[in-house]
Protein backbone atom coordinates (compact mmCIF):
# COMPACT_ATOMS: atom_id res chain seq x y z
CA UNK A 1 0.00 0.00 0.00
CA UNK A 2 3.03 2.26 -0.12
CA UNK A 3 4.33 4.68 -2.66
CA UNK A 4 7.29 2.84 -4.08
CA UNK A 5 9.77 4.14 -6.58
CA UNK A 6 12.43 1.92 -8.06
CA UNK A 7 15.57 2.94 -9.91
CA UNK A 8 14.08 6.10 -11.35
CA UNK A 9 16.26 7.94 -13.83
CA UNK A 10 15.45 11.06 -15.80
CA UNK A 11 17.93 12.51 -18.24
CA UNK A 12 16.34 15.05 -20.60
CA UNK A 13 19.71 16.48 -21.69
CA UNK A 14 23.37 15.69 -21.03
CA UNK A 15 22.91 15.72 -17.28
CA UNK A 16 20.99 13.38 -15.06
CA UNK A 17 18.16 15.18 -13.29
CA UNK A 18 17.39 11.97 -11.42
CA UNK A 19 19.89 9.16 -11.27
CA UNK A 20 18.81 5.75 -10.01
CA UNK A 21 16.52 7.06 -7.28
CA UNK A 22 14.59 4.52 -5.21
CA UNK A 23 12.22 5.15 -2.32
CA UNK A 24 9.53 3.52 -0.25
CA UNK A 25 7.12 6.04 1.27
CA UNK A 26 4.65 4.79 3.88
CA UNK A 27 1.23 6.27 4.57
CA UNK A 28 0.87 8.61 7.52
CA UNK A 29 4.51 9.67 7.40
CA UNK A 30 6.36 12.86 6.64
CA UNK A 31 9.32 12.71 4.29
CA UNK A 32 11.67 15.57 3.61
CA UNK A 33 13.90 15.80 0.59
CA UNK A 34 16.99 17.83 1.36
CA UNK A 35 19.21 19.06 -1.40
CA UNK A 36 20.69 22.17 -2.89
CA UNK A 37 19.17 24.09 -5.76
CA UNK A 38 19.13 21.98 -8.95
CA UNK A 39 19.75 18.77 -7.03
CA UNK A 40 16.63 17.20 -8.55
CA UNK A 41 14.13 17.82 -5.75
CA UNK A 42 11.51 19.44 -7.97
CA UNK A 43 12.09 16.83 -10.68
CA UNK A 44 11.46 14.06 -8.18
CA UNK A 45 8.23 15.66 -6.94
CA UNK A 46 7.04 16.31 -10.49
CA UNK A 47 7.77 12.70 -11.36
CA UNK A 48 5.67 11.52 -8.43
CA UNK A 49 2.89 13.94 -9.43
CA UNK A 50 3.04 12.65 -12.99
CA UNK A 51 4.07 15.90 -14.66
CA UNK A 52 7.25 14.20 -15.85
CA UNK A 53 7.72 10.67 -17.01
CA UNK A 54 11.03 9.10 -16.00
CA UNK A 55 13.20 7.54 -18.70
CA UNK A 56 13.74 4.50 -16.54
CA UNK A 57 12.36 2.99 -13.38
CA UNK A 58 8.93 2.44 -11.95
CA UNK A 59 6.59 4.09 -9.48
CA UNK A 60 3.75 2.20 -7.89
CA UNK A 61 1.11 3.30 -5.41
CA UNK A 62 -1.40 1.03 -3.74
CA UNK A 63 -0.12 -1.78 -5.94
CA UNK A 64 -0.94 0.12 -9.15
CA UNK A 65 1.56 1.17 -11.79
CA UNK A 66 1.53 4.93 -11.22
CA UNK A 67 3.31 5.84 -14.43
CA UNK A 68 0.39 4.61 -16.53
CA UNK A 69 -2.05 6.89 -14.68
CA UNK A 70 -2.23 10.45 -16.08
CA UNK A 71 -1.64 13.39 -13.69
CA UNK A 72 -5.29 14.40 -13.52
CA UNK A 73 -6.36 10.97 -12.28
CA UNK A 74 -3.61 10.47 -9.70
CA UNK A 75 -5.21 12.46 -6.88
CA UNK A 76 -2.05 14.11 -5.66
CA UNK A 77 -1.69 17.66 -4.40
CA UNK A 78 1.27 19.94 -4.89
CA UNK A 79 2.33 23.31 -3.54
CA UNK A 80 5.00 25.11 -5.51
CA UNK A 81 7.70 27.44 -4.30
CA UNK A 82 6.19 30.14 -6.51
CA UNK A 83 2.80 31.08 -5.13
CA UNK A 84 0.64 29.41 -7.75
CA UNK A 85 -3.09 30.09 -7.52
CA UNK A 86 -5.74 30.72 -10.14
CA UNK A 87 -5.65 34.50 -10.60
CA UNK A 88 -9.11 34.65 -12.18
CA UNK A 89 -10.78 33.08 -9.14
CA UNK A 90 -11.20 34.39 -5.61
CA UNK A 91 -9.88 32.61 -2.54
CA UNK A 92 -12.97 30.46 -2.03
CA UNK A 93 -13.22 29.49 -5.70
CA UNK A 94 -9.53 28.65 -5.76
CA UNK A 95 -10.01 26.06 -3.04
CA UNK A 96 -13.23 24.63 -4.49
CA UNK A 97 -11.71 24.27 -7.96
CA UNK A 98 -10.20 20.78 -7.52
CA UNK A 99 -13.26 19.61 -5.57
CA UNK A 100 -15.65 20.71 -8.29
CA UNK A 101 -13.38 19.05 -10.79
CA UNK A 102 -13.98 15.81 -8.89
CA UNK A 103 -17.74 16.49 -8.88
CA UNK A 104 -18.22 16.28 -5.13
CA UNK A 105 -21.60 17.28 -3.70
CA UNK A 106 -22.02 20.99 -2.84
CA UNK A 107 -22.44 20.20 0.88
CA UNK A 108 -19.25 18.16 0.93
CA UNK A 109 -17.36 20.91 -0.92
CA UNK A 110 -18.56 23.56 1.50
CA UNK A 111 -17.56 21.48 4.49
CA UNK A 112 -14.11 20.61 3.14
CA UNK A 113 -13.32 24.16 2.05
CA UNK A 114 -14.33 25.68 5.36
CA UNK A 115 -12.26 23.12 7.20
CA UNK A 116 -9.22 23.89 5.03
CA UNK A 117 -9.69 27.65 5.43
CA UNK A 118 -9.79 27.18 9.19
CA UNK A 119 -6.66 25.05 9.19
CA UNK A 120 -4.60 27.63 7.30
CA UNK A 121 -6.15 30.58 9.16
CA UNK A 122 -7.82 32.32 6.22
CA UNK A 123 -11.42 32.39 7.49
CA UNK A 124 -12.92 35.72 6.40
CA UNK A 125 -10.77 35.95 3.27
CA UNK A 126 -13.16 33.89 1.10
CA UNK A 127 -14.12 36.67 -1.29
CA UNK A 128 -10.72 38.29 -1.63
CA UNK A 129 -8.95 38.30 -4.93
CA UNK A 130 -5.64 36.48 -5.04
CA UNK A 131 -3.87 39.65 -6.15
CA UNK A 132 -4.95 41.39 -2.94
CA UNK A 133 -3.16 38.89 -0.72
CA UNK A 134 0.39 38.95 0.60
CA UNK A 135 2.87 36.27 -0.41
CA UNK A 136 2.35 34.34 2.81
CA UNK A 137 -1.42 34.44 2.39
CA UNK A 138 -1.15 33.34 -1.23
CA UNK A 139 0.89 30.35 -0.14
CA UNK A 140 -1.73 29.58 2.51
CA UNK A 141 -4.40 29.52 -0.20
CA UNK A 142 -2.29 27.09 -2.23
CA UNK A 143 -1.85 24.94 0.87
CA UNK A 144 -5.58 25.10 1.68
CA UNK A 145 -6.38 23.94 -1.85
CA UNK A 146 -4.05 21.01 -1.41
CA UNK A 147 -5.45 20.11 2.02
CA UNK A 148 -9.10 20.40 0.95
CA UNK A 149 -8.51 17.84 -1.78
CA UNK A 150 -7.63 15.26 0.86
CA UNK A 151 -5.17 13.83 -1.61
CA UNK A 152 -3.35 10.70 -0.59
CA UNK A 153 -0.05 12.17 -1.64
CA UNK A 154 0.77 15.75 -0.70
CA UNK A 155 3.84 17.29 -2.30
CA UNK A 156 5.34 20.54 -1.04
CA UNK A 157 8.16 21.92 -3.14
CA UNK A 158 10.16 24.42 -1.08
CA UNK A 159 6.94 26.13 0.00
CA UNK A 160 8.66 28.68 2.22
CA UNK A 161 11.61 29.68 0.11
CA UNK A 162 10.05 32.78 -1.45
CA UNK A 163 8.82 34.23 1.82
CA UNK A 164 10.69 36.73 3.92
CA UNK A 165 12.49 35.59 7.05
CA UNK A 166 9.81 36.38 9.60
CA UNK A 167 6.91 34.91 7.65
CA UNK A 168 8.97 31.82 6.95
CA UNK A 169 9.53 31.22 10.67
CA UNK A 170 5.87 31.79 11.40
CA UNK A 171 4.55 29.56 8.62
CA UNK A 172 7.07 26.85 9.46
CA UNK A 173 5.66 26.71 12.99
CA UNK A 174 2.16 26.48 11.56
CA UNK A 175 3.20 23.74 9.16
CA UNK A 176 4.25 21.61 12.09
CA UNK A 177 0.81 22.05 13.62
CA UNK A 178 -1.03 21.51 10.33
CA UNK A 179 0.97 18.40 9.54
CA UNK A 180 0.23 16.90 12.93
CA UNK A 181 -3.47 17.84 13.08
CA UNK A 182 -4.72 18.43 9.60
CA UNK A 183 -3.60 15.29 7.86
CA UNK A 184 -5.16 11.88 7.95
CA UNK A 185 -3.28 8.66 8.52
CA UNK A 186 -3.76 7.86 4.84
CA UNK A 187 -1.60 10.69 3.60
CA UNK A 188 1.98 10.59 2.48
CA UNK A 189 3.54 14.00 2.89
CA UNK A 190 6.67 14.82 0.92
CA UNK A 191 8.38 18.11 1.63
CA UNK A 192 11.41 19.36 -0.24
CA UNK A 193 13.74 22.04 1.00
CA UNK A 194 17.27 23.42 0.83
CA UNK A 195 17.20 24.42 4.47
CA UNK A 196 18.69 21.92 6.97
CA UNK A 197 16.98 23.70 9.84
CA UNK A 198 13.57 23.04 8.29
CA UNK A 199 14.44 19.39 7.96
CA UNK A 200 15.44 19.14 11.60
CA UNK A 201 12.32 20.96 12.80
CA UNK A 202 9.91 18.90 10.72
CA UNK A 203 11.75 15.84 12.00
CA UNK A 204 10.62 13.30 9.43
CA UNK A 205 12.41 10.77 7.34
CA UNK A 206 15.03 12.51 5.23
CA UNK A 207 16.33 11.81 1.76
CA UNK A 208 19.47 13.73 0.88
CA UNK A 209 19.62 14.39 -2.84
CA UNK A 210 22.55 15.72 -4.83
CA UNK A 211 22.96 15.86 -8.62
CA UNK A 212 19.94 13.60 -8.95
CA UNK A 213 21.41 10.89 -6.73
CA UNK A 214 20.28 9.80 -3.29
CA UNK A 215 23.23 10.29 -0.94
CA UNK A 216 21.64 9.17 2.31
CA UNK A 217 18.27 8.18 3.74
CA UNK A 218 17.26 8.12 7.36
CA UNK A 219 15.63 9.96 10.24
CA UNK A 220 16.56 13.63 10.55
CA UNK A 221 18.55 13.01 13.72
CA UNK A 222 20.60 10.29 12.06
CA UNK A 223 21.44 12.51 9.07
CA UNK A 224 22.52 15.28 11.40
CA UNK A 225 24.57 13.10 13.71
CA UNK A 226 26.07 10.67 11.24
CA UNK A 227 26.25 12.11 7.73
CA UNK A 228 27.47 9.23 5.59
CA UNK A 229 29.90 11.36 3.62
CA UNK A 230 31.34 14.85 3.31
CA UNK A 231 28.77 15.97 0.76
CA UNK A 232 25.89 15.11 3.09
CA UNK A 233 27.69 16.87 5.93
CA UNK A 234 27.91 20.01 3.78
CA UNK A 235 24.31 19.88 2.58
CA UNK A 236 22.78 19.07 5.95
CA UNK A 237 24.42 21.94 7.81
CA UNK A 238 23.93 25.65 7.48
CA UNK A 239 26.58 27.04 7.37
CA UNK A 240 28.07 23.95 5.71
CA UNK A 241 30.31 21.78 7.88
CA UNK A 242 33.93 22.94 7.82
CA UNK A 243 36.43 20.60 6.25
CA UNK A 244 40.08 20.55 7.34
CA UNK A 245 42.58 18.33 5.61
CA UNK A 246 44.91 16.78 8.18
CA UNK A 247 46.23 13.65 9.73
CA UNK A 248 46.17 11.63 12.91
CA UNK A 249 49.26 10.17 14.54
CA UNK A 250 49.63 8.31 17.80
CA UNK A 251 49.64 11.53 19.83
CA UNK A 252 47.74 14.27 18.03
CA UNK A 253 45.40 15.39 15.33
CA UNK A 254 47.31 17.70 13.00
CA UNK A 255 46.08 20.24 10.48
CA UNK A 256 47.44 23.59 9.32
CA UNK A 257 50.26 23.44 11.92
CA UNK A 258 47.72 23.00 14.65
CA UNK A 259 47.89 20.04 16.99
CA UNK A 260 44.90 18.90 18.98
CA UNK A 261 44.63 16.25 21.59
CA UNK A 262 42.97 13.09 20.27
CA UNK A 263 39.34 13.02 21.36
CA UNK A 264 37.94 9.83 22.88
CA UNK A 265 35.90 8.78 19.89
CA UNK A 266 39.02 8.89 17.66
CA UNK A 267 41.10 6.65 19.94
CA UNK A 268 40.64 3.55 17.78
CA UNK A 269 41.21 5.37 14.51
CA UNK A 270 44.04 4.26 12.23
CA UNK A 271 46.95 6.72 12.02
CA UNK A 272 46.73 8.32 8.57
CA UNK A 273 45.41 11.30 6.59
CA UNK A 274 41.79 12.35 7.05
CA UNK A 275 39.30 15.05 6.17
CA UNK A 276 38.25 16.39 9.54
CA UNK A 277 34.80 17.91 9.80
CA UNK A 278 33.71 20.40 12.42
CA UNK A 279 30.46 22.39 12.63
CA UNK A 280 30.68 26.17 12.61
CA UNK A 281 28.96 26.26 16.01
CA UNK A 282 31.69 24.11 17.60
CA UNK A 283 34.34 26.78 17.05
CA UNK A 284 34.73 29.36 19.82
CA UNK A 285 36.73 32.54 20.26
CA UNK A 286 39.51 31.87 22.75
CA UNK A 287 42.44 34.09 23.78
CA UNK A 288 44.68 31.05 24.07
CA UNK A 289 43.53 29.49 20.82
CA UNK A 290 44.95 29.27 17.33
CA UNK A 291 45.38 32.33 15.16
CA UNK A 292 43.21 32.72 12.03
CA UNK A 293 42.72 35.66 9.68
CA UNK A 294 39.26 37.12 9.14
CA UNK A 295 38.19 37.21 5.49
CA UNK A 296 34.63 38.28 6.06
CA UNK A 297 32.35 38.86 9.02
CA UNK A 298 28.59 38.85 8.57
CA UNK A 299 25.99 39.49 11.20
CA UNK A 300 22.84 37.44 10.84
CA UNK A 301 20.17 38.05 13.42
CA UNK A 302 21.80 37.67 16.82
CA UNK A 303 24.76 35.72 15.48
CA UNK A 304 28.00 36.58 13.74
CA UNK A 305 29.43 34.42 10.99
CA UNK A 306 33.20 34.63 10.72
CA UNK A 307 34.85 33.46 7.53
CA UNK A 308 38.36 32.53 8.58
CA UNK A 309 41.53 31.53 6.81
CA UNK A 310 44.75 29.87 7.78
CA UNK A 311 47.16 28.39 5.25
CA UNK A 312 45.09 26.57 2.66
CA UNK A 313 42.10 26.08 4.91
CA UNK A 314 39.02 28.24 4.96
CA UNK A 315 36.49 27.75 7.70
CA UNK A 316 33.36 29.41 9.02
CA UNK A 317 32.79 30.02 12.71
CA UNK A 318 29.40 30.82 14.20
CA UNK A 319 29.66 33.21 17.16
CA UNK A 320 26.47 33.47 19.15
CA UNK A 321 26.54 37.18 19.72
CA UNK A 322 26.75 40.28 17.59
CA UNK A 323 30.35 41.42 17.34
CA UNK A 324 32.19 43.77 15.03
CA UNK A 325 35.38 42.64 13.36
CA UNK A 326 37.69 44.19 10.82
CA UNK A 327 38.58 42.31 7.69
CA UNK A 328 42.15 40.88 7.79
CA UNK A 329 42.13 41.18 11.56
CA UNK A 330 43.63 38.18 13.36
CA UNK A 331 41.50 36.28 15.85
CA UNK A 332 42.24 33.34 18.07
CA UNK A 333 39.85 30.43 18.13
CA UNK A 334 39.48 27.08 19.76
CA UNK A 335 38.05 23.88 18.27
CA UNK A 336 35.84 21.56 20.28
CA UNK A 337 37.77 18.37 19.53
CA UNK A 338 35.03 16.22 21.01
CA UNK A 339 32.76 17.21 18.11
CA UNK A 340 35.21 16.35 15.33
CA UNK A 341 34.14 14.11 12.49
CA UNK A 342 36.64 12.08 10.51
CA UNK A 343 36.04 11.38 6.85
CA UNK A 344 38.36 9.21 4.81
CA UNK A 345 40.25 10.66 1.87
CA UNK A 346 37.51 9.40 -0.44
CA UNK A 347 35.12 11.46 1.74
CA UNK A 348 33.28 8.62 3.52
CA UNK A 349 32.42 8.93 7.21
CA UNK A 350 34.94 7.06 9.37
CA UNK A 351 34.12 8.30 12.83
CA UNK A 352 31.54 10.65 14.30
CA UNK A 353 31.14 12.05 17.80
CA UNK A 354 27.76 10.27 17.94
CA UNK A 355 29.30 6.88 17.34
CA UNK A 356 28.27 6.31 13.75
CA UNK A 357 30.59 4.94 11.12
CA UNK A 358 30.13 4.00 7.57
CA UNK A 359 31.56 0.51 7.05
Amino acid at each position, binding site marked *: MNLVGEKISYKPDEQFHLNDVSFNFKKGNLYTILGRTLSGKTTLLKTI*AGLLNPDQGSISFEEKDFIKIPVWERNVA*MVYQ*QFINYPHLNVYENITFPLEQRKLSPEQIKKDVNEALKTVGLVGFENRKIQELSGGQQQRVALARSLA*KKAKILLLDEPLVNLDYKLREQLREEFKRIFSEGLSQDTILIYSTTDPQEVMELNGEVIVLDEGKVLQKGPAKEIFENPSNLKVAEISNDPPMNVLKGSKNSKNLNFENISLEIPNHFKNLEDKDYNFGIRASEIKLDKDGEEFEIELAEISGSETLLHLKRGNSKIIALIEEVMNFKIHEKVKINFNANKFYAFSEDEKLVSSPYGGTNG
Partner: protein
Amino acid sequence: MSKLYTFLKYFFITFWTVFVVAPFLWAVSTSFKDFQSVNSKVTYIPWLDFEPTLEGWRVLIKSPAKGGVDIVEPYFNSIFVTCTASLISIVLGTLAAYALSRFTFKAGFVRNNDITFFFISQRIMPPIVLSIPFFIFLSTIGLLDSLLGLVVVYIVLLMPIAVWIMVDFFNRVPKELDETALIDGCNPYQAFYKVVLPNSIPGLIVAGMFCIIFGWIDFFFAFILTFTEVQLLPVKVVALNSSITPWWSLSASALVSVAPLIIVAFIVERYLSKGNLSGALK
Protein backbone atom coordinates in the same frame (compact mmCIF):
# COMPACT_ATOMS: atom_id res chain seq x y z
CA MET B 1 13.51 74.62 -15.04
CA SER B 2 10.33 72.95 -13.88
CA LYS B 3 8.25 75.84 -15.23
CA LEU B 4 9.90 75.51 -18.61
CA TYR B 5 9.33 71.78 -18.46
CA THR B 6 5.64 72.25 -17.66
CA PHE B 7 5.32 74.80 -20.44
CA LEU B 8 7.02 72.54 -22.99
CA LYS B 9 4.97 69.58 -21.86
CA TYR B 10 1.67 71.35 -22.37
CA PHE B 11 2.90 73.00 -25.53
CA PHE B 12 3.69 69.69 -27.19
CA ILE B 13 0.56 68.00 -25.88
CA THR B 14 -1.53 70.83 -27.29
CA PHE B 15 0.40 70.84 -30.55
CA TRP B 16 -0.04 67.11 -30.98
CA THR B 17 -3.72 67.20 -30.07
CA VAL B 18 -4.37 69.93 -32.63
CA PHE B 19 -2.32 68.02 -35.18
CA VAL B 20 -4.41 64.88 -34.66
CA VAL B 21 -7.83 66.38 -34.06
CA ALA B 22 -7.82 69.18 -36.66
CA PRO B 23 -8.18 66.95 -39.74
CA PHE B 24 -11.06 65.22 -38.00
CA LEU B 25 -12.83 68.47 -37.29
CA TRP B 26 -12.15 69.58 -40.84
CA ALA B 27 -13.66 66.36 -42.17
CA VAL B 28 -16.67 66.76 -39.86
CA SER B 29 -17.34 70.29 -41.04
CA THR B 30 -16.70 69.46 -44.71
CA SER B 31 -19.17 66.59 -44.57
CA PHE B 32 -21.95 69.12 -43.93
CA LYS B 33 -21.01 71.48 -46.74
CA ASP B 34 -22.35 71.67 -50.27
CA PHE B 35 -20.58 72.34 -53.58
CA GLN B 36 -20.76 76.08 -53.10
CA SER B 37 -19.28 76.19 -49.60
CA VAL B 38 -16.35 73.96 -50.57
CA ASN B 39 -15.38 75.54 -53.86
CA SER B 40 -16.04 79.26 -53.53
CA LYS B 41 -13.95 80.30 -50.51
CA VAL B 42 -12.62 78.86 -47.28
CA THR B 43 -15.43 78.45 -44.75
CA TYR B 44 -15.21 77.33 -41.17
CA ILE B 45 -18.20 77.92 -38.96
CA PRO B 46 -21.58 76.39 -39.74
CA TRP B 47 -24.57 78.76 -40.03
CA LEU B 48 -22.22 81.75 -40.01
CA ASP B 49 -19.85 80.89 -42.86
CA PHE B 50 -22.02 78.32 -44.62
CA GLU B 51 -25.42 76.73 -44.46
CA PRO B 52 -24.97 73.07 -43.28
CA THR B 53 -26.62 70.39 -45.38
CA LEU B 54 -27.02 66.64 -44.92
CA GLU B 55 -26.57 65.95 -48.62
CA GLY B 56 -23.04 64.57 -48.19
CA TRP B 57 -24.36 62.00 -45.73
CA ARG B 58 -27.54 61.24 -47.68
CA VAL B 59 -25.76 60.09 -50.81
CA LEU B 60 -23.92 57.44 -48.81
CA ILE B 61 -27.08 55.39 -48.42
CA LYS B 62 -28.67 56.25 -51.78
CA SER B 63 -28.37 53.69 -54.58
CA PRO B 64 -26.16 54.66 -57.54
CA ALA B 65 -29.23 54.61 -59.80
CA LYS B 66 -30.53 57.62 -57.84
CA GLY B 67 -27.19 59.43 -57.95
CA GLY B 68 -25.91 58.09 -54.61
CA VAL B 69 -22.77 56.14 -53.80
CA ASP B 70 -24.26 53.49 -51.48
CA ILE B 71 -21.51 52.48 -49.07
CA VAL B 72 -23.92 50.37 -46.99
CA GLU B 73 -23.14 47.12 -48.76
CA PRO B 74 -19.33 47.60 -48.76
CA TYR B 75 -19.64 48.59 -45.10
CA PHE B 76 -21.30 45.32 -44.14
CA ASN B 77 -18.91 43.41 -46.39
CA SER B 78 -15.99 44.94 -44.53
CA ILE B 79 -17.53 44.17 -41.16
CA PHE B 80 -18.20 40.58 -42.21
CA VAL B 81 -14.74 39.96 -43.67
CA THR B 82 -12.86 41.64 -40.81
CA CYS B 83 -14.83 40.00 -38.02
CA THR B 84 -14.86 36.52 -39.54
CA ALA B 85 -11.16 36.59 -40.40
CA SER B 86 -10.24 38.07 -37.00
CA LEU B 87 -12.31 35.53 -35.10
CA ILE B 88 -10.88 32.55 -36.97
CA SER B 89 -7.35 33.97 -36.69
CA ILE B 90 -7.73 34.45 -32.94
CA VAL B 91 -9.13 30.97 -32.35
CA LEU B 92 -6.55 29.17 -34.49
CA GLY B 93 -3.74 31.55 -33.54
CA THR B 94 -4.38 31.13 -29.81
CA LEU B 95 -4.35 27.35 -30.07
CA ALA B 96 -1.18 27.45 -32.16
CA ALA B 97 0.46 29.90 -29.77
CA TYR B 98 -0.41 27.78 -26.73
CA ALA B 99 1.09 24.72 -28.36
CA LEU B 100 4.21 26.67 -29.35
CA SER B 101 4.58 28.03 -25.85
CA ARG B 102 4.00 24.81 -23.92
CA PHE B 103 5.14 21.85 -26.02
CA THR B 104 8.48 21.16 -27.61
CA PHE B 105 8.41 20.46 -31.32
CA LYS B 106 11.25 18.86 -33.18
CA ALA B 107 11.29 18.22 -36.92
CA GLY B 108 14.77 17.99 -38.34
CA PHE B 109 16.43 21.27 -37.47
CA VAL B 110 13.09 22.99 -36.88
CA ARG B 111 12.29 24.03 -33.31
CA ASN B 112 9.49 26.02 -31.68
CA ASN B 113 11.18 29.37 -32.31
CA ASP B 114 11.59 28.57 -35.99
CA ILE B 115 7.89 27.77 -36.31
CA THR B 116 6.98 31.03 -34.59
CA PHE B 117 9.29 32.82 -36.99
CA PHE B 118 7.66 31.16 -39.99
CA PHE B 119 4.36 32.63 -38.88
CA ILE B 120 5.79 36.10 -38.39
CA SER B 121 7.74 35.96 -41.65
CA GLN B 122 4.38 36.21 -43.43
CA ARG B 123 4.28 39.81 -42.26
CA ILE B 124 7.90 40.62 -43.08
CA MET B 125 7.37 40.30 -46.82
CA PRO B 126 5.97 43.39 -48.55
CA PRO B 127 2.33 42.68 -49.45
CA ILE B 128 3.05 43.19 -53.16
CA VAL B 129 5.15 40.01 -53.12
CA LEU B 130 2.14 38.05 -51.96
CA SER B 131 -0.34 39.62 -54.33
CA ILE B 132 0.39 37.51 -57.40
CA PRO B 133 0.45 34.17 -55.57
CA PHE B 134 -2.79 35.09 -53.81
CA PHE B 135 -4.39 36.15 -57.10
CA ILE B 136 -3.44 32.88 -58.84
CA PHE B 137 -4.43 30.85 -55.79
CA LEU B 138 -7.87 32.44 -55.51
CA SER B 139 -8.52 32.25 -59.25
CA THR B 140 -7.56 28.56 -59.25
CA ILE B 141 -10.02 27.68 -56.53
CA GLY B 142 -12.61 30.07 -57.97
CA LEU B 143 -12.80 32.47 -55.05
CA LEU B 144 -11.65 35.67 -56.76
CA ASP B 145 -14.03 38.56 -56.21
CA SER B 146 -15.82 36.78 -53.36
CA LEU B 147 -16.23 37.37 -49.62
CA LEU B 148 -15.01 33.86 -48.80
CA GLY B 149 -11.82 34.42 -50.81
CA LEU B 150 -11.13 37.64 -48.91
CA VAL B 151 -11.73 35.91 -45.58
CA VAL B 152 -9.18 33.23 -46.52
CA VAL B 153 -6.57 35.81 -47.51
CA TYR B 154 -7.19 37.92 -44.40
CA ILE B 155 -6.75 34.88 -42.15
CA VAL B 156 -3.33 34.38 -43.73
CA LEU B 157 -2.52 38.01 -42.97
CA LEU B 158 -4.00 38.22 -39.47
CA MET B 159 -3.10 34.88 -37.93
CA PRO B 160 0.64 35.70 -37.67
CA ILE B 161 -0.27 38.73 -35.57
CA ALA B 162 -2.43 36.62 -33.28
CA VAL B 163 0.23 33.91 -32.96
CA TRP B 164 2.96 36.42 -32.31
CA ILE B 165 1.11 38.30 -29.57
CA MET B 166 -0.26 35.17 -27.92
CA VAL B 167 3.03 33.23 -27.89
CA ASP B 168 4.60 36.13 -26.07
CA PHE B 169 1.64 36.30 -23.72
CA PHE B 170 1.57 32.59 -22.91
CA ASN B 171 5.32 32.57 -22.34
CA ARG B 172 4.72 35.00 -19.51
CA VAL B 173 2.05 32.82 -17.89
CA PRO B 174 3.96 30.42 -15.64
CA LYS B 175 3.92 26.79 -16.73
CA GLU B 176 3.19 25.90 -13.11
CA LEU B 177 -0.30 27.34 -13.52
CA ASP B 178 -1.18 24.71 -16.14
CA GLU B 179 0.55 22.06 -14.08
CA THR B 180 -1.49 22.97 -11.02
CA ALA B 181 -4.64 22.65 -13.11
CA LEU B 182 -3.54 19.18 -14.23
CA ILE B 183 -2.78 18.18 -10.66
CA ASP B 184 -6.16 19.52 -9.59
CA GLY B 185 -7.88 17.10 -11.93
CA CYS B 186 -8.14 18.88 -15.28
CA ASN B 187 -7.19 17.06 -18.43
CA PRO B 188 -5.05 19.17 -20.78
CA TYR B 189 -8.08 20.57 -22.67
CA GLN B 190 -9.87 21.52 -19.46
CA ALA B 191 -6.65 23.09 -18.15
CA PHE B 192 -6.57 25.22 -21.27
CA TYR B 193 -10.14 26.48 -21.31
CA LYS B 194 -10.82 26.53 -17.56
CA VAL B 195 -7.55 28.05 -16.36
CA VAL B 196 -5.27 29.33 -19.12
CA LEU B 197 -7.94 30.97 -21.27
CA PRO B 198 -9.72 32.96 -18.52
CA ASN B 199 -6.33 34.35 -17.53
CA SER B 200 -5.48 35.28 -21.10
CA ILE B 201 -8.28 37.77 -21.71
CA PRO B 202 -5.97 40.83 -21.83
CA GLY B 203 -3.78 39.09 -24.40
CA LEU B 204 -6.79 37.98 -26.43
CA ILE B 205 -8.13 41.53 -26.46
CA VAL B 206 -4.85 43.01 -27.63
CA ALA B 207 -4.50 40.36 -30.34
CA GLY B 208 -8.14 40.81 -31.36
CA MET B 209 -7.74 44.56 -31.55
CA PHE B 210 -4.69 44.30 -33.80
CA CYS B 211 -6.46 41.79 -36.05
CA ILE B 212 -9.51 44.04 -36.38
CA ILE B 213 -7.41 47.12 -37.11
CA PHE B 214 -5.21 45.45 -39.70
CA GLY B 215 -8.17 43.70 -41.29
CA TRP B 216 -10.33 46.81 -41.39
CA ILE B 217 -7.77 49.17 -42.87
CA ASP B 218 -6.43 46.84 -45.55
CA PHE B 219 -6.82 48.43 -48.97
CA PHE B 220 -4.23 46.58 -51.03
CA PHE B 221 -5.65 43.05 -51.10
CA ALA B 222 -9.24 44.25 -51.13
CA PHE B 223 -8.33 46.26 -54.21
CA ILE B 224 -6.45 43.52 -56.05
CA LEU B 225 -8.64 40.54 -55.30
CA THR B 226 -12.08 42.04 -55.95
CA PHE B 227 -13.67 43.67 -59.05
CA THR B 228 -17.40 44.20 -59.30
CA GLU B 229 -19.22 41.55 -57.30
CA VAL B 230 -17.77 42.38 -53.92
CA GLN B 231 -16.39 45.65 -52.68
CA LEU B 232 -14.89 46.47 -49.32
CA LEU B 233 -15.18 49.85 -47.65
CA PRO B 234 -11.61 51.16 -48.15
CA VAL B 235 -11.81 50.51 -51.89
CA LYS B 236 -15.21 52.17 -52.13
CA VAL B 237 -14.06 55.24 -50.22
CA VAL B 238 -10.98 55.68 -52.37
CA ALA B 239 -13.08 55.17 -55.50
CA LEU B 240 -15.07 58.29 -54.58
CA ASN B 241 -12.03 60.35 -55.43
CA SER B 242 -12.77 60.70 -59.15
CA SER B 243 -12.49 63.60 -61.63
CA ILE B 244 -14.87 65.81 -59.67
CA THR B 245 -14.30 64.89 -56.07
CA PRO B 246 -17.43 65.10 -53.87
CA TRP B 247 -15.48 66.31 -50.81
CA TRP B 248 -18.60 66.34 -48.61
CA SER B 249 -19.51 62.66 -49.13
CA LEU B 250 -15.83 61.65 -49.13
CA SER B 251 -15.48 63.26 -45.68
CA ALA B 252 -18.66 61.65 -44.46
CA SER B 253 -17.61 58.20 -45.66
CA ALA B 254 -14.13 58.62 -44.16
CA LEU B 255 -15.76 59.45 -40.81
CA VAL B 256 -18.07 56.45 -40.83
CA SER B 257 -15.21 54.17 -41.81
CA VAL B 258 -13.00 55.17 -38.87
CA ALA B 259 -15.90 55.14 -36.42
CA PRO B 260 -15.72 51.39 -35.65
CA LEU B 261 -12.01 51.61 -34.85
CA ILE B 262 -12.59 54.51 -32.47
CA ILE B 263 -15.31 52.54 -30.71
CA VAL B 264 -13.07 49.47 -30.51
CA ALA B 265 -10.22 51.57 -29.11
CA PHE B 266 -12.44 53.01 -26.36
CA ILE B 267 -13.77 49.61 -25.29
CA VAL B 268 -10.36 47.99 -25.35
CA GLU B 269 -8.68 50.80 -23.46
CA ARG B 270 -11.19 50.45 -20.66
CA TYR B 271 -10.87 46.68 -20.55
CA LEU B 272 -7.10 46.67 -20.63
CA SER B 273 -6.71 48.94 -17.65
CA LYS B 274 -9.20 46.82 -15.71
CA GLY B 275 -8.00 43.32 -16.51
CA ASN B 276 -4.38 43.73 -15.59
CA LEU B 277 -2.60 40.43 -15.04
CA SER B 278 0.52 41.73 -13.32
CA GLY B 279 0.65 40.88 -9.65
CA ALA B 280 -1.67 37.97 -10.13
CA LEU B 281 1.19 35.76 -11.15
CA LYS B 282 4.52 36.04 -9.53
